[in-house]
């Protein structure tokens, strides 16, 4: 388990929580420390509580834990909300002069640091910098060199003029010095720095960057939490490569524009969340039937309906696998970490074009808004390969023409993969349609051709299973009798849960699955293990159901659907309990 440190800043929406948290995360990252961030958006109590939490270590961190060492509390509610996570010796930095904080009670076992954030900020040039004063105070408490904070402030405010940067640096120093001068307390935190260089990014950004690396040049989308960041990342960057982002009037339009761009021959993508997937499902069958390569990103949030828009859930698996009338061939990919969001996006584009098929790429809120540090080599662009599949040019058209010189865009091939000709390619003019069609893309209701086209579309999926490696990721002890299986974003928490379980001498084999369809065949592993637990953020165990179907064996389930992601320590407890229950049943 990494020797970690847990920090948070909390207040009301509008208090600048996010940007302050990000500055501190950046400072830690620039100091060569690993960082994992998470955000509390809404409250268990009513009101606009919001918090930005950082877990940091010199080793890699990839999960949150139920523990807070230092809290900057701008409101009393911030303390209330986090009482469970605060512990003996936790430090709470607050401004006792703030009207709402007057008379606030700090639990006896904790250390309260009353710092006049606002008035110190005014001394530095403006009350708006009070959060930065708090960051300076946090540097003093954690023995963290303030120069690292300077560097993050430079990045954040550099484009607004050196004066503003300098004022902020001064504000931070006033906070640091105030704590140093006024509190004669020995703080036991020591945020050591390293020489390592890290980058800090979230899952939405990793997907956007993956799309650019993969040659995505057209994106159309409609704003929706928590997928909007993908669009915001691409705007301003995709243009550098000759691409464009369109904000469509709705998701129906967004997916149809993306489809149009793909028919034109561009690598094209849209991203949305569950409610948008519902709307896009109308066009999904058309994409598959017309054999158009398209990447559709679903950043899942809590449903059904409007659900809890800013909360975590992995509830859309059935929708992605089975959504739409009729039988629709598709791929469903679920990256398990932020760096994998990048690589799986690249892969999604290649798969889409190699097999002329729509690809669902599913992240979830926990991956999308979480920032994590990686060495830049984790995104080595030299490793990106682009495979456009059977895209034919003018010279190759001839071999795909029928006797009347028409291009066979749905040619019945042995591997099920037909050629694509971009509009503009001489001799390649053809139509495609959502109607059942013949090889030329023209409507048919011929019983024989219907069967041949359905079989052909399924055959290319079989071909993909033969040619591609739809593999899983493994952690822990592969020989353990206890097998824990997960998909999507739970991987980080599971990997860290292994450390907690090891403390109790519990040995676990973790399988983390990034491909839901086509997926690795886990029946052998499942049937070889004594205990099998499937972990997922939904109520009904959508993936567990699939695995039971695949392996013909009942599995145990750990389901979380309260809107909060799995935490490593909590997940370890859940696994322990589930294993104990199973043991009881066996006795």
């Amino acid at each position: 388990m990494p020797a970690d440190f847990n920090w948070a800043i909390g207040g009301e929406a509008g208090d600048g929580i996010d940007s302050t948290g990000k500055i501190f995360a950046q400072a830690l990252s620039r100091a060569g420390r690993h960082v994992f961030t998470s955000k509390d958006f809404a409250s268990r109590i009513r009101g606009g509580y919001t918090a930005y939490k950082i877990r940091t270590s010199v080793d890699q961190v990839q999960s949150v834990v139920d523990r807070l060492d230092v809290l900057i509390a701008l409101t009393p509610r911030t303390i209330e909300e986090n009482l469970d996570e605060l512990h003996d010796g936790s430090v709470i930095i607050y401004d006792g002069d703030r009207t709402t904080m007057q008379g606030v009670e700090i639990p006896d076992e904790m250390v309260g640091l009353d710092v006049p954030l606002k008035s110190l900020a005014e001394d530095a040039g403006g009350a708006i910098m009070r959060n930065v004063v708090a960051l300076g105070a946090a540097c003093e408490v954690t023995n963290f060199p303030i120069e690292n904070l300077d560097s993050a402030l430079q990045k954040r405010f550099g484009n607004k003029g050196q004066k503003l940067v300098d004022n902020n640096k001064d504000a931070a120093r006033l906070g640091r010095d105030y704590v140093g001068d006024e509190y004669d307390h020995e703080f036991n935190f020591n945020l050591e720095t390293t020489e390592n260089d890290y980058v800090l990014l979230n899952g939405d950004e990793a997907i956007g960057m993956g799309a650019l690396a993969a040659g995505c040049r057209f994106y159309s989308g409609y704003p929706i939490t928590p997928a909007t960041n993908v669009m915001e990342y691409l705007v301003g960057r995709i243009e550098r490569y000759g691409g464009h982002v369109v904000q469509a009037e709705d998701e129906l339009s967004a997916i149809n524009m993306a489809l149009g761009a793909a028919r034109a021959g561009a690598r094209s993508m849209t991203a949305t969340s569950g409610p948008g997937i519902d709307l896009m499902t109308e066009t999904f069958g058309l994409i598959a039937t017309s054999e158009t390569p398209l990447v559709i990103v679903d950043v899942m949030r809590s449903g059904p309906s409007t659900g809890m828009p800013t909360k975590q859930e992995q509830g859309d698996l059935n929708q992605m696998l089975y959504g739409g009338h009729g039988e629709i061939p598709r791929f469903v990919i679920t990256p398990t970490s932020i760096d994998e969001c990048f690589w799986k996006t690249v892969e999604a584009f290649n798969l889409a074009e190699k097999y002329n098929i729509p690809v669902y790429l599913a992240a979830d809120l926990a991956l999308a808004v979480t920032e994590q540090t990686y060495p830049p080599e984790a995104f080595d662009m030299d490793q990106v390969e682009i495979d456009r599949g059977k895209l034919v040019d003018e010279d190759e058209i001839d071999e795909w023409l029928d006797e009347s010189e028409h291009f066979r865009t749905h040619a019945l091939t042995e591997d099920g993969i037909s050629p694509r000709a971009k509009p503009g390619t001489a001799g390649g003019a053809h139509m495609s349609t959502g109607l059942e069609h013949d090889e030329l893309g023209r409507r048919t209701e011929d019983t024989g051709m219907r069967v041949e086209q359905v079989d052909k579309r399924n055959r290319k999926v079989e071909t993909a299973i033969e040619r591609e490696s739809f593999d899983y990721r493994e952690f822990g002890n592969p020989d353990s009798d206890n097998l824990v299986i997960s998909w999507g974003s739970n991987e980080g928490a599971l990997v860290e849960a292994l450390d907690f379980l090891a403390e109790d001498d519990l040995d676990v084999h973790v399988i983390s699955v990034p491909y839901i369809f086509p997926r690795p065949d886990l029946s052998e592993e499942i049937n070889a293990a004594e205990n099998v637990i499937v972990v997922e953020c939904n109520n009904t165990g959508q993936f567990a159901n699939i695995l039971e179907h695949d392996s013909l064996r009942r599995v145990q389930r750990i389901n979380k659907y309260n809107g909060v992601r799995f935490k490593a320590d909590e997940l370890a407890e859940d696994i322990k309990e589930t294993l104990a229950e199973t043991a009881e049943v066996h006795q």
Partner: protein
Amino acid sequence: MSSQVRFTDFKSDKQPTWCPGCGDFGTMNGMMKALANTGNDPDNTFVVAGIGCSGKIGTYMHSYALHGVHGRALPVGAGVKLANPELEVMVAGGDGDGYSIGAGHFIHAVRRNVNMTYVVMDNRIYGLTKGQASPTSRDDFETSTSPQGPKQPPVNPLALALASGASFIAQSFSSDALRHAEIVQEAIEHDGFGFVNVFSPCVTFNDVDTYDYFRDSLVDLKEEGHDETDYEAAKKVILDSEKEYQGVMYRDENAVPYGEAHGVTENMTEIGDGAPEDAMDLVREFY
């Protein structure tokens, strides 16, 4: 190549299944003539169609084409055009496809002003589903689903376009072959979203808005000395519910098409076989 293209090159060898006498024959012929006259050929042309009798057009024409879902042909067309501005994009639909299920897209396609052409075959009836009221049916038009008439005013698509900031609004009649082709050609030549509402009579299910009705009532703006660049004059003819007009009603010569406004003028379909050369810069941004 363009000089040798004849309009029949845009004809596929598939026999249309439209009812004999359907207005859509004339509408399609005019589109093909206009495409040929503007120097296009089947290999650089993309036709998008929705659902309904009109949606079949992609099958009967020869070009690159997509026959999509109901009401969403316009976004497809925008995607095609923006991804490759070198293509000639023509979207075809019916009154149900464009003004009912696709009405939302119509408004935004007009606003967006992507340089493409939208031809609506308006027969004021749902033909493919055998005779139900459409959004342009008269309020007393009796159908199987509206025995006393829809009792709602018909949509005025031209007014909808004008109110949405259209840069080109026209109306034609499929039976007036010469004028129809001429008007569609003007829409193609317009630098922006060229919208043509075509009276395309349904001989099977609409016995009110017939060939005879349009022949008798149609006023050609060309003969009326109408100034299509005059917004107020356009508004007047568009809102005139007493008469049926054909011709170009409005043209905004100063409107900037979406592609130019957003700097999207290059073909974006060509990419390399790896990440862009400077792609590590994207990673470094996250330091």
